């Protein structure tokens, strides 16, 4: 009884203390105080603005007056399937898939080494080495690459000195990959994309491999699996959530990028640069909004495929 009385007197201390015991007694209130501001921010600013933007995709754009009127139409979405626009979508999609595949192949060994063979300082070094390029301005890096890949640039110099110039000419001659120089070829654009997005692939894969208990690998070997079998049957399936997360980054970042396609590679729009041109130069916000829908739909399709393949079963 005495004890109960004591706690009650403690509860009616200063106003701050009263507040803290109120929050303690009502955990739901506490939780909602914590969650409501970020949820409002997320709901209103992220989802709200995105939905408002997509809604504009149904507005009408008058080619003559260049004016947008809020009359709902499916014309913009339909226009996506015109050959010119459809080409842009396919070109971007192809690049996004190629970049994701290449980034995955390059990232996996590095991530595996980081997760399983490095400790302490070496691991910190690798983290910094992977993230260092992300600290520099993205546009500067993209510009730098135009110079590196240009005729007479560093890449050309290496190729010449290694005696690979004929090979490069051969590769640049392949339609769909090549171009007149590396910096104006699809191949050059692909290289820059892979370079820029690689850290986004390495880190999630590294995190998923980090969570892989070493004794699963021992158990696999113990049961008679050769290293290649252990890789296929245990390591790869358990790292797929990381690969999926990384590829969602590389895939969606490539789909939405509008700077690299302008600086490196042959002329021709990407989805991102098309959105930029539509709403910036032309002022056709409804068409830009319609194009914005494309990456969202593509990523949704991609995720459902990944899910169907069982990538998230181990989560």
């Amino acid at each position, binding site marked *: 009884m005495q004890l109960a009385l004591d706690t009650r007197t403690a509860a009616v201390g200063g106003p701050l203390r009263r507040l803290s015991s109120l929050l303690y007694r009502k955990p739901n209130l506490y939780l909602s105080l914590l969650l409501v501001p970020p949820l409002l921010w997320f709901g209103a600013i992220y989802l709200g603005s995105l939905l408002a933007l997509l809604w504009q995709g149904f507005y009408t754009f008058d080619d003559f007056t260049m004016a947008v009127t809020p009359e709902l139409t499916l014309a913009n979405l339909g226009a996506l399937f015109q050959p010119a626009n459809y080409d842009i979508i396919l070109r971007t999609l192809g690049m996004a898939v190629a970049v994701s595949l290449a980034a995955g192949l390059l990232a996996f060994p590095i991530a595996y080494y980081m997760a399983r063979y490095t400790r302490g300082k070496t691991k910190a070094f690798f983290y910094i080495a992977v993230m260092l390029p992300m600290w520099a301005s993205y546009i500067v890096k993209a510009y730098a690459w135009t110079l590196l890949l240009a005729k007479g640039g560093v890449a050309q110099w290496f190729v010449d000195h290694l005696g690979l110039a004929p090979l490069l000419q051969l590769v640049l001659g392949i339609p769909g990959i090549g171009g007149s120089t590396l910096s104006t070829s699809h191949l050059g654009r692909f290289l820059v994309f892979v370079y820029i997005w690689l850290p986004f692939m390495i880190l999630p894969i590294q995190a998923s491999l980090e969570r892989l*208990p070493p*004794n*699963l690998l*021992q*158990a*696999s*070997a*113990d*049961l*008679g*699996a*050769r290293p290649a*079998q252990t890789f296929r*049957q*245990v390591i790869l*399936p*358990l790292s797929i959530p990381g690969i999926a997360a990384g590829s969602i980054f590389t895939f969606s970042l490539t789909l939405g990028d509008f700077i690299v396609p302008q600086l490196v590679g042959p002329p021709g729009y990407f989805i991102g640069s098309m959105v930029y041109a539509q709403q910036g130069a032309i002022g056709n916000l409804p068409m830009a909004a319609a194009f914005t829908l494309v990456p969202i739909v593509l990523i949704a399709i991609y995720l459902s495929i990944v899910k169907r393949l069982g990538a998230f*079963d*181990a989560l």
Partner: protein
Amino acid sequence: MTIAVQFTQVSRQFGEVKAVDRVSIDIQEGEFFSMLGPSGSGKTTCLRLIAGFEQPSAGSIRIHGAEAVGLAPYQRDVNTVFQDYALFPHMNVLDNIAYGLKVKGVGKTERRARAEEALGMVALGGYGARKPVQLSGGQRQRVALARALVNRPRVLLLDEPLGALDLKLREQMQSELKKLQRQLGITFIFVTHDQSEALSMSDRVAVFNKGRIEQVDTPRNLYMRPATSFVAEFVGTSNVLRGGLALELGGSERPLSIRPEHTRLAGSEALGGDEVEISGLLHDIQYQGAATRYEIRLDNGQNFCVSQANTQWGEGAALRSTGQRVTARWARAAMVALHDIAPGADA
């Protein structure tokens, strides 16, 4: 009888630390062999040396007569049951069990049939479609066992497999494991730090201490005839008498071991011809149900423990009180003379 696993002067060093130090053992085929010792005594490293997860720094390991040093785990005809089971989380129970057969290229139908059979053997028929996360600790343990046994290894290694289970389940698994081992005739090498587990299950036990083997013997000999004071004190409890007391009671400098339950508190009866006694102050009495323990402080300051069965109501604890001077008595034949290995010496 053929030798399943043979260690000859095997050492394993990690930097400065000698985890295993010149160990030699012969483990017979079909034997239930336990490696017992406190943590860090080298028993688990020995198991990992047999499995191939570690390679020895020196010495030779032969498995069924063939030199195993240098062979990778997947090249050895042994399977391991891991302490924390190490089940593959992305596979269901049946796929976990069939894994060893799959990687060896056994066909799908046979694989399935044998996995089902193994699942039945550990009394988990019908659980094949579940994921490991949906199982309890005891069930995971059985799956890990079935996953190892389905490969029909000639040697099964068990790394403290019962450590994570609660007492009741552990006792049940102990008798099931023992039964399974007799039925299959496979050599079991069982690592544990639990001396009662080792005694109750094994044909023979090796007691490890600081990377060395102190004694390899049957459970009965280990308990009744411990070779060293470490064994005497680690396997069960023991009173080890040294120096002047050893000289007086045993006639030599060698330490003497006497089990508490082999001693009794003397009454007024005369000392028998084949008996010895020692006296001191009774300073603690612990009633333990089946027995009562009496802690006696001897005149040289050492503690001595007497354990007496509580055979009749009213007898025992009620008759004694702390602070009394009491005499402990036992048969001369119950004492064991120990020969301790000096640290760093060659056994």
